[in-house]
Structure formats: C-alpha cells, structure tokens
C-alpha cells in the first residue's frame, strides 16, 4: 500500500514540477489589533473583564487564470470595546468564488457592490467603523455590446456573523455612449440606471406591509474638456417598519437628488457638489437599526485629516437634508511672489448642510406632504446641521522645511447630528487653527510638529455645555524606511466642568519593513464620534496599551 502511495507521488511530483506555472498564485494579508483596557474614572474609561481584547483578520486569495477564490477568517476574542459586541468569536463570514468566461463575470458567495453613487445600493467593509454588509448570493456582470455594462445580483446582506432576513435583488446598467459608438470627440456621455428590491414576508397581522420594497435610480455623466457633470436621481417606495409606534410606522416614500459639477485645468481645480435627500435610508430588513443599511449617501463636507478639525464631524442625515460642498484647489506657480521656488498649494473649502423645507416626509403624513428640493435651497426657516469654511495652505519652504496651515470656522448642530433632544446642546461654533511643520534633519531623518487649537462657543439658548476649548500638540520623529516615534497630547483646557479639563496623552512606536508593519501604543483615548467617509460610530473612552501588526504576502 505504502509502495503504491510512494510510487504515485513519484509519478505526480515531476508533473507538479512541470506544471508549476499553472498552479496559480496565492496572496493575502493579515492584521491583528490587540488592546488592553484599564479603569480610568477621570475619563469614564472602564476596564475590560478580559483585560485584553483582540480583533484579527486573515484574507486569502487564490487566483488561477480566469478563476479567483477567496476567504476571510475573522477573530474577535473578544471584540474591541469600540466594536459592537455582536462581533464575537471566530468564523469565516466572507468567502467567494469568481470566474470570467467570454465576458461573463460570475461571483458566488460574498461580494461588495455599488450602483452609481451608492444612493440605492452600496455594500462595503470598513474595519475602522466595524461595517461589513457584504451580500451573500450570486452576482453576474456582462458586457453584451461595447460600452454597455450590465450587472445583476441576488443575495442576503451580512450583519455581524449573521444575515438579515430580507432578500436583496438588484440590476444595474451603464451605457458609455462614446465607447459604444466609437466617438473620439471632446464630449463624452455615460448614462446609467439601477433597480433594487427587497423581499421580506409581511409578518405583522395588524398592518398591510409591502413585502417587496423597490428603489430605483437614474444617472448621467457628461464630460467636456475640463468640465465634468454628474447627476443622479433616486426614488424608494414606502417602507414602514411595522411597529405600533407612530413615527416609525409611516408610509412615506423616499427620494434623493445629487448634482456634482467640477472643472479643472493645470494648476486649478473647482468642485461644486450638492444633494437633496428625503427619507432615503434603505435597509436589508424591515427595521430601524443602522446595521441594516445597504445604501450610501455621500457626506457633503471635507474629510479632514487633522484631529481637532474632525472633532465635530459632519454626517449625512438621510431622513432629510439639503447641502452643498465647494472646493477650489489652486497652485500658485513657481518663481512668483507667493509661489516661491516650489509653488504654493491652496485649498479653499465651503460646505453647508441644513434641514429640508417643511420638514422631511418621514415626520409628515406622506399623502399630504411633498418635500420640495428647490425650496430648500433658499435657506430661510431651515435648521442648520453643519457648516465648515476653511482654507488650507501647503508650502515647501526649502529642501528641508515643509509647512501646512489650516484655518477653519465650523458650526455643528450637536442635537441634530448626534440625536440629542432639541435644545440640549444646540449649535456649537468653533474656530480652529492648525500648523504642521516638518523638518528634514538629515537623509531619512525627519521631525514633524503639529500644533492645533480649537476655540468653541456654546449655543446661548442650549441647556448643556459642549466640551469647550482644546489644545493639541503632536511630535513625530521618523527614520525612513523603518521607524517612527510619536507622542501627542490633547488638552481640553477650556471644558466648562473643571474636573474634565484633562490631558489625553498618547505615544506610539512603529516599525515597518516591506510589507510588514508593527505598532505599539499607549495612552488615553477620548470618547467621541469617529467617522470615516461621513459614516460615524460612537467610540467609548479608553486607557491602555495597543499592539497592531499587519502584513501582506
């Protein structure tokens, strides 16, 4: 028996050696985030019973010719405190197989998909936010004629380690006219349309609930020289939750309109974006909780990279919002008075969002109320949600010194954006300044200093005070290509409550080599709202050590 085995291996091995190029390739990445938690009553940080918590992920991808297969192993033992506790234990919640054959692209298992801007469907993963709503099912993509891209899908959306009850069916078509007609002109047109429907059985004897909830959207993209226009309109039929609570159980429809116009030429870029949204949250289940959301309404504000500029972050209000966001990017040319030897980069940004005229459909009776996108533009009685006016200047002074300055004026409706009672905090106004200087000491060695200041003014009519004024200092020393050392202190010196005038000190050391990265940190984190791409989560305060390791292969 053993002889036969050995013989067969001997026969197989040369075959394996010869065909080694046909075996395909395996690659992937690994990440682990370990954090210890200790009690710190001053910042309301609570020690974890487990002392140490850990989130880890391993992605493996196998590719051979037209075939790809992949899986992600996820381990939450137990989930970090800023994660939902329903992420618990180990599992393989993501696995798929995909192949392409004569232009037909087939995926079975889990997949991420977005139609247009995502107004009616976007499934994605964001580790930082703890979001993963991938669909599990079947997806087909096909190009029947040049320039026509068709997608069809069916699946169930992931929520933590389970799948929500609704079955999601969707189709999207995009038609690139210039590709189809082989036009070479300066103007190009792309048209698109999509349809998404959710099926869930009416399990409520008291109400007649729609079992198939449909949403649809149409989009248009025109490019001409330096101009680019993108417009999208989305509509969703009524989707009552089916509870006895009046404000949850209404039959209003939803809509959204997006208009983006940009212009650019060498040295100059201008963007004007706006949207109108009314009752447009689309969920994978007849429920209100945000973990079921399967669409995405892009937030209209600058995605700030500095801590104090993002202390009061904007988030889209899908139940009713009108807003716009404009940017001017300009590079003052080299060898001019303000440009200096290397040129100076400017970015002026103004963003504002407010409630829609007459209130959103959700709180009105749908049969008598129609929200009007055009009336919302003339800001009269509407409530301000967020506004941000800021200027960023980036200047390379000489070969050693680089300077980045930001000045901002922000208004933040804490009640509306954080779901507080109206009148609790009102609108917090803040003025923020950031100076970021880096100095190259010698080859590979750089020191960088960040100074940030936030001066805030509470709403005089509000009953509670916000956090008040902040300082922040960050010092970073980097040795390319392997090391970085950083220390930062956030100091809430202007807190109305003297006991909360605290320092939040954090230190970290990182080592990087090729595709591997190690980082050790220690310090206090403040409780707050953490956002990526306008989607936010509440983060509890914490005090402890952290260890992050990530690696690619």
């Amino acid at each position, binding site marked *: 028996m053993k002889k036969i085995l050995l013989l067969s291996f001997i026969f197989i091995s040369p075959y394996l050696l010869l065909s080694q190029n046909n075996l395909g390739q395996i690659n992937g990445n690994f990440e682990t985030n370990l954090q210890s938690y200790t009690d710190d009553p001053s910042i309301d940080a609570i020690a974890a019973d487990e002392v140490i918590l850990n989130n880890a992920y391993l*992605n493996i991808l196998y590719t051979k010719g037209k075939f790809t297969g992949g899986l992600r192993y996820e381990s939450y033992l137990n989930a970090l405190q800023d994660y939902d506790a329903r992420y618990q234990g180990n599992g393989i919640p993501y696995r798929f197989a995909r192949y392409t054959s004569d232009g037909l692209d087939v995926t079975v298992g889990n997949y991420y*998909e977005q139609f247009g801007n995502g107004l009616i469907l976007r499934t*994605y993963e964001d580790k930082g936010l703890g979001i993963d709503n991938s669909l599990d099912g079947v997806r087909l993509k096909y190009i029947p004629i040049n320039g026509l891209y068709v997608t069809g899908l069916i699946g169930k959306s992931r929520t933590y380690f389970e799948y929500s009850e609704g079955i999601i069916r969707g189709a999207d078509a995009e038609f690139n006219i210039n590709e189809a007609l082989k036009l070479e002109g300066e103007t*190009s047109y792309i048209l698109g349309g999509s349809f998404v429907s959710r099926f869930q059985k009416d399990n409520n004897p008291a109400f007649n609930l729609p079992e198939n909830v449909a949403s649809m959207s149409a989009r248009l993209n025109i490019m001409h020289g*330096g101009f680019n226009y993108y417009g999208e309109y989305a509509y969703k039929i009524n989707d009552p939750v089916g509870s006895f609570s009046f404000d949850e159980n209404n039959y209003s429809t939803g809509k959204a309109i997006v208009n983006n116009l940009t212009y650019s030429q060498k040295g100059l*870029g201008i963007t004007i974006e706006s949207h109108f949204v009314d009752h447009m949250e689309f969920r994978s289940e007849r429920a209100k909780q945000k973990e079921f959301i399967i669409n995405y309404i892009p937030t209209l504000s600058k995605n700030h990279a500095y801590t104090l500029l993002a202390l009061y972050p904007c988030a889209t209000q899908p139940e009713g919002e009108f807003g716009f966001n404009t940017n001017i*990017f300009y590079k003052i040319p080299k060898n001019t008075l303000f440009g200096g030897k290397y040129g100076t980069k400017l970015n002026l940004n103004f963003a504002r969002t407010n409630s829609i005229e007459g209130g959103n459909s959700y709180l009105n009776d749908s049969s008598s109320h129609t929200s009007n996108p055009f009336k919302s533009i003339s800001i009269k009685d509407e409530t301000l949600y967020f506004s941000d006016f800021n200027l960023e200047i980036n200047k390379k002074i000489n070969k050693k010194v680089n300077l980045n300055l930001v000045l901002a004026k922000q208004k933040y409706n804490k009640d509306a954006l954080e779901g507080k009672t109206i009148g609790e905090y009102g609108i917090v106004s803040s003025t923020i300044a950031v100076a970021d200087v880096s100095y190259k000491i010698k080859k590979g060695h750089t020191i960088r200093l960040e100074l940030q200041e936030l001066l805030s003014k509470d709403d005089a009519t509000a009953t509670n005070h916000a956090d008040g004024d902040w300082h922040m200092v960050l010092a970073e020393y980097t040795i390319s290509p392997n090391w970085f050392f950083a220390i930062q202190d956030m100091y809430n010196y202007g807190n109305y409550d003297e006991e909360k005038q605290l320092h939040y000190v954090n230190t970290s050391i990182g080592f990087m080599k090729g595709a591997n990265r190690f980082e050790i940190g220690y310090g206090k984190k403040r409780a707050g709202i953490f956002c990526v791409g306008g989607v936010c989560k509440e983060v509890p305060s914490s005090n402890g050590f952290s260890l992050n390791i990530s690696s*690619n292969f």
Partner: protein
Amino acid sequence: MIKKLILSLFVIAFFTVSSFSQNRTLPSVKVKNLKGSLVNIQTIENDGNPIVISFWATWCKPCKKELNTIAEVYEDWQEETGVKLVAISIDDSRSASKVKPYVNSSGWEYEIYLDPNRDLSRSLGVSTVPHTFLLDGKGNIVWEHRGYIEGDEEELLEQIEQISK
C-alpha cells in the same frame, strides 16, 4: 519507507509552495479611468520598464505627501529608469469627484485610475493607504511597501534602479 514518503511529501510541498509564491502578478480586475471607462489593470504597460502602483486617496495626507514629493523628481526618475507611476485612488463616491481636480491642480503627470468599490485594492490585500507596489518589466510584483514617511521615496528609487538595469 515512511521516511521516504515524508521526504517526497516535503519535496512536493516545497515545490508547490515555491511555485505559488513565485511570479506574483496583478489580478484581472477592472478600474475606472478619469474618462469613466473601465480598464483591466492587467493591460497597463510600460514597454518592458518598471511600473510603480501607488494606492492613495484625496483625504490621505501621507499619500499626497508621497505623490507630491515624487512629482518633483518624476521627470528625473523617468529619464534615469524609464519608470511609470500609476496612482490608483480608493476615494469612494464622497470624494471621487475631487480626484481629477486635485490631480490637475497639483500638476501630477501620473496615470490615474479610480477604484471606488475597492475591487483592486482588496485583491492586492491593500487595507490602508498609502500602499505602494513595484512591478518589474515583466509585470511581476517585486516589492511592496505600506505607509509613507519622509525619505521613503529614496528606498523606492533604489528598488527601481535595481530592476531597471
């Protein structure tokens, strides 16, 4: 007998693993160009010269620092090594419309693509940006690097010089 069996298993395993790990190339995944057309990333080429693929986003400070730093010396790099830089933005629909205005206003001469659904970055195991890959003239991924700190561009140039000889 058993020893031989184990040995042959090891030999097979060794060759299997080594053949798996050799010649890592780009996957067959589509990205969007700035004209809105889908392009298979495997079709990018540079006449047998090296290609740098850099994943970035308009909201990522170190990414912009890296690409702005390289932009100043890009012409020299191209002359010396024939390298081409392909910058792939992972901006989603919140910021994707700012990619072209930002690129143009900064005067970058790179080849730009969009990966808004992160199909390509997921296939290459890119979980954070910036993340840089270096491809040799045959399209093999020969080097990769996560993050950017000032001075990292010099290591990248050394790596390019090694394979462009």
